[in-house]
């Protein structure tokens, strides 16, 4: 009866596309050229819309806004790896992913202008609204995946996205543990962008990686270069395929960096230095992906210019539409408290509308 070693574990890190656009041919996922291009377009749209929204916010035309510039490769390729019929359960820092799921630019603007209506995805009814209560969406993803299976849709999976800081919440633990015991087809994608507002990853948890937290739940775990679109795609695709085949859940740690502020209410200079930011600028996910496509001969500066022009036009149109303002029903909140008509709610609605008459709209 000695001191026996009873378990051994390993955590791996996947990276395929380096900062100079060079790839490890052995690992390159087979994505057709058109997919590569559409992925690049999605990441570029995310980047440009992010910048435009920040700009509008600075002009006071939007409310508090989270930005995601620099993290595009951590979330866009993941959406490419799932189907429209799969569940997408995001957080709030994956704009490009949401747009890939069919959210309109106008909706994004509407939401951050204070209208719940912006949360409604017009084309995809398996994309949940943004989730702000950190970690709380993880169990939802487990239930969605399990639920669809039980309803007979045997090949549905759920993808959920969250940040490094969210892994400290009890809901992270409970969600992953449920995924393990229910063998639920879920992919947990952690965007480790090094910070939770001002709190660096190093004091968020003492584990060397986020990926190794998978070991607590008997699920798969892997770390990937989150600025490497090919690695994120490959890791997610493998996790999705395994989950679809009944092989259970995976925790993916995508190591990336938030180039901007946490939200427009935040001042990053209080807690991080410029040179940290600069070292990460060199790792920009779009630059290296463009280099890769150019190398491959499927992209050039002309195409790039056209793309930017096209996206700018789309955004301009959306902003114009947005600026017309919304025909928002003032008493809509009363419509969505319950699915039934309740006397006490209707009595309050009547009072609300009467008051509104007297005072006019404060909004």
């Amino acid at each position, binding site marked *: 009866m000695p001191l026996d070693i009873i378990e051994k574990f390993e955590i791996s890190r996947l990276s395929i596309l380096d900062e100079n656009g060079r790839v490890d041919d052995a690992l390159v996922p087979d994505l057709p050229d058109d997919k590569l291009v559409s992925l690049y377009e999605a990441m570029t749209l995310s980047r440009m819309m992010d910048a435009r929204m920040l700009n509008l916010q600075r002009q006071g035309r939007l409310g508090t806004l989270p930005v995601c510039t620099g993290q595009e490769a951590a979330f866009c390729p993941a959406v490419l790896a799932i189907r429209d019929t799969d569940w997408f359960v995001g957080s709030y820092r994956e704009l490009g992913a949401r747009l890939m799921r069919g959210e309109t630019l106008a909706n994004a603007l509407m939401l951050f202008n204070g209208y719940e209506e912006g949360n409604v995805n017009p084309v995809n009814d398996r994309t949940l609204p943004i989730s702000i209560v950190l970690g709380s969406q993880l*169990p939802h993803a487990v239930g969605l995946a399990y639920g669809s299976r039980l309803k007979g849709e045997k090949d549905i999976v759920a993808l959920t996205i969250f940040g490094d800081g969210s892994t400290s919440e009890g809901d992270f633990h*409970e969600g992953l543990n449920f995924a393990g015991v229910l063998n639920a087809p879920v992919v947990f994608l952690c965007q480790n962008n090094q910070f939770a507002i001002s709190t660096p990853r190093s004091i968020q948890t003492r584990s060397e990686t986020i990926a190794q937290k998978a070991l607590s739940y008997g699920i798969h775990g892997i770390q990937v270069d989150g600025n490497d679109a090919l690695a994120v795609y490959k890791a997610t695709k493998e996790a999705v395929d395994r989950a679809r085949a009944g092989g259970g859940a995976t925790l993916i740690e995508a190591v990336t960096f938030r180039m901007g502020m946490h939200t427009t209410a935040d001042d990053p200079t209080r807690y991080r230095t410029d040179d940290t930011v600069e070292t990460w600028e060199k790792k920009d996910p779009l630059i290296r992906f463009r280099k890769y496509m150019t190398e491959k001969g499927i992209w050039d500066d002309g195409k790039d210019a056209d793309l930017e022009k096209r996206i700018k036009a789309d955004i301009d149109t959306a902003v114009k539409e947005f600026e017309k303002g919304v025909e928002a029903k003032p008493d809509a909140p009363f419509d969505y408290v319950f*699915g039934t008509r309740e006397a006490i709610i209707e009595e309050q609605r009547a009072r609300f509308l009467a008051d509104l008459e007297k005072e006019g709209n404060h909004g």
Partner: protein
Amino acid sequence: MAKINMVQALNTTLHDVMTEDDTVLIMGEDVGVNGGVFRVTDGLYEKFGRDRVIDSPIAEAGILGTAIGMAIAGLKPVIEMQFSGFSYEMMHQMEGNASRMRNRSRGQFTVPLVVRMPYGGGVRALEHHSESKEVFYAHTAGVKVVIPSSPSNAGPLLKAAINDPDPVVFMEPKRSYRSFKETIQPGEYTIGKAEVVTPGEDITVVSWGAMMRDTLKAADMVRSERGASLEIIDLMTISPMDAATIIASVKKTGRCVVVQEAQQSFGPASEIIALINDQALMYLEAPVKRVTMYDVIMPLFARELMYLPSKEKIVRAIQETLDF
């Protein structure tokens, strides 16, 4: 028809509903193989299997959080919090998500689920097993709070809760689980409607849950003592509250006593009094009397009966209000 207790009524209802509707699913701690620590889910695991009757890990937020996903996916989860005293672990999933998904998504996603939880005192239990915190859920917009009081209304109310389009917190007075049996009186029970159990002219007495028993006994005593005519209301839905039934009664009687097991301050009785103040103040011939637990930490069982509203306290409250 044979007499059954509340546990049997709830158990039968779950068997029936799960047979009729295969989107209904059970999840919670020890609800499967063990049939629940109070046996409310007895036999379901054997009949419907582990996919629909899930013995979950011990993680209340995980249970509700996962059930929220299941509900959005089109199932009707009926989850159990083993005791209401351990439901606070999931408060953030209830307030932050279950109650809000309909509003957040403008109706695109809804969360039709039921959270069953035994609650209340009087069963000589350990700490945390005897509280009445219905207000936590009632003060959360988007959540319905339902509390049965008898074998007869427990089944229909649970069925209504399962078929309701919204998250329903279904609080089961564990003190009444096995304390009495009834031959089930078929009755119409709707969420959002209180029941006038016995009509009367002189005073309105409102209660719910386990307190209904003592309230009815107290009412009988007062009736026989002074031949007063008491109108007894079983609230049944704490939120959204059936103000109309209460107000109509108080306008008629002019006097009211509310019997609540929860601590006095910030309890449901306060809301009832506020509604009466809003809509029937000028009909009051006496202050509305509250019979409640005190603002103390619920004592362990050696002292609990001194602290819970008793038949005697209720009788005195009714007498004093009649004599005011």
